[in-house]
């Protein structure tokens, strides 16, 4: 029964694919708008053999992971700091939220000047876009810790370190992971976007290439690979969260 839900999800996806296939074959949708789903799937072996998609998958996933880890390393302490100090929170939380709304990717020329046409530029843009959800959700998680749980800790005379490790952090884990999921989505979108724009490394560049060659099934196949990156991250994150909750 554990697999019932994912299985029905896959069934629906297959059914939708079939429906599209049918609609395109009947010419309800032009092949120049959307290639046949079967052609998209058929393009995958070619992408692996000729376009080195596996290596590009690893590049994009690696850059996104680096951006996400940086966001975690910076965002978690920042969230804790803003949670601890009411004044700092009042001063900075609106700015962090504003940063989340900024279309940062449009500023890529600036980062190109700063970091050159290198993976560093991609990782930094990914990191900055991944940071706000980590900070905001971390604050939310700490702030939502029920007062009575903190009182239990106080009555048992926990040290500040113990209070963080044994109460505040475990209580905030679900929110922190919501923040991480959002961070990886934002990070991935920006990483692929910059790869596409500056034509450097990874799946973004491949999608750009294939689109310029009018290889539509290949382009969509590349996009499918980006989705696979995000599925891979979500699966790993789920595992991490469960492991952490058990250990708390």
């Amino acid at each position, binding site marked *: 029964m554990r697999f019932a839900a994912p299985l029905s999800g896959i069934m629906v996806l297959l059914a939708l694919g079939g429906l599209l296939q049918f609609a395109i074959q009947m010419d309800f949708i032009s092949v120049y708008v959307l290639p046949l789903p079967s052609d998209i799937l058929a393009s995958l072996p070619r992408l692996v053999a000729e376009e080195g998609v596996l290596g590009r998958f690893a590049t994009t996933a690696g850059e996104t992971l680096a951006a996400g880890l940086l966001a975690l390393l910076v965002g978690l302490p920042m969230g804790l700091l803003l949670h601890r100090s009411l004044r700092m929170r009042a001063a900075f939380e609106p700015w962090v939220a504003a940063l989340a709304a900024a279309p940062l990717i449009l500023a890529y020329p600036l980062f190109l000047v700063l970091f050159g046409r290198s993976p560093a530029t991609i990782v930094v843009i990914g990191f900055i876009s991944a940071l706000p959800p980590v900070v905001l959700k971390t604050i939310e998680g700490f702030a939502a810790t029920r007062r009575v749980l903190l009182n239990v800790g106080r009555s*048992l005379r926990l040290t500040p370190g113990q209070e963080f490790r044994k109460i505040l952090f475990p209580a905030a*884990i679900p929110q922190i992971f919501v923040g991480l999921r959002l961070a990886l989505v934002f990070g991935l979108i920006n990483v692929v976007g910059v790869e596409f724009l500056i034509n450097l490394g990874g799946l973004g560049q491949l999608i750009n290439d294939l689109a310029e060659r009018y290889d539509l099934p290949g382009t969509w196949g590349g996009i499918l690979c980006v989705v696979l990156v995000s599925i891979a991250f979500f699966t790993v994150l789920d595992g991490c969260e469960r492991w952490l909750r058990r250990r708390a």
Partner: protein
Amino acid sequence: MNALLRVEQVSKHFGTRENGVTAVDRVSFGVAQGEFVSVIGPSGCGKSTLFHMIGGLVAATEGRIDVEGDAIRAPHPAIGMVFQEESCFPWRNVVDNVAFPLELQGMARAERHERARHFIDMVGLHGFERNQPSELSGGMRQRVSIARTLASQPRILLMDEPFAALDEQTRLLLGDKVLQIQQELSQTTLLITHSITEAVQLSDRILVMSFRPGRIKREIVVDLPRPRTSDAVVSPAFGAYVADIWNDLRQEATLGLAAADRRRTSAA
């Protein structure tokens, strides 16, 4: 009386002096070693405020609280608290919740689990050691909290309406559990409650609080034989105590209701 816990002329004001409430007004009493004392009063009379002050979580505005002469300014190691609200850690299973105070003391895992099991059995949760709090009923979760506090082996057990959210039958049965525990450990206990039957069933002494300002209006020594069980509830002597306390509380509860009505109409 040779009191283990002593509360002397303790008051608590919230807000400014001109514009605020006096939640607790010059309350004094003592609890002797091994004694079971209940504080009873209508909703909003300052019981939880008193509880938090004795627990050292909130400072009194005036007066002094001490454990054998040692003044309480912060949470005191002799006092174990059970809170009115649900207070299990939802990310820990039952045994790890109960073992929490022992874990803080640095006790090894196997040993603290064994100790925790002892207290889990005591509150009647044998067989639920590995369950998550979300899989338990509200009454069972409260018992987990009680077992956790007992595991820290406090000299004084301080409980704030631990069974308030439960129905009367469950409450009486849990009362039996508390009586058993009290007998087994000769646990000094201060119970805060708004249930008259609970107070009479469990206590050696009952302090009746008045509604705002919260003062101690009366003290009643419950002279029912021990060991007691919930069966005592049907005895005439029990009924007489309940009626007597209800007479006192009725006035206070009416005042409380009137205050609530005034708030409603002035808010409208």
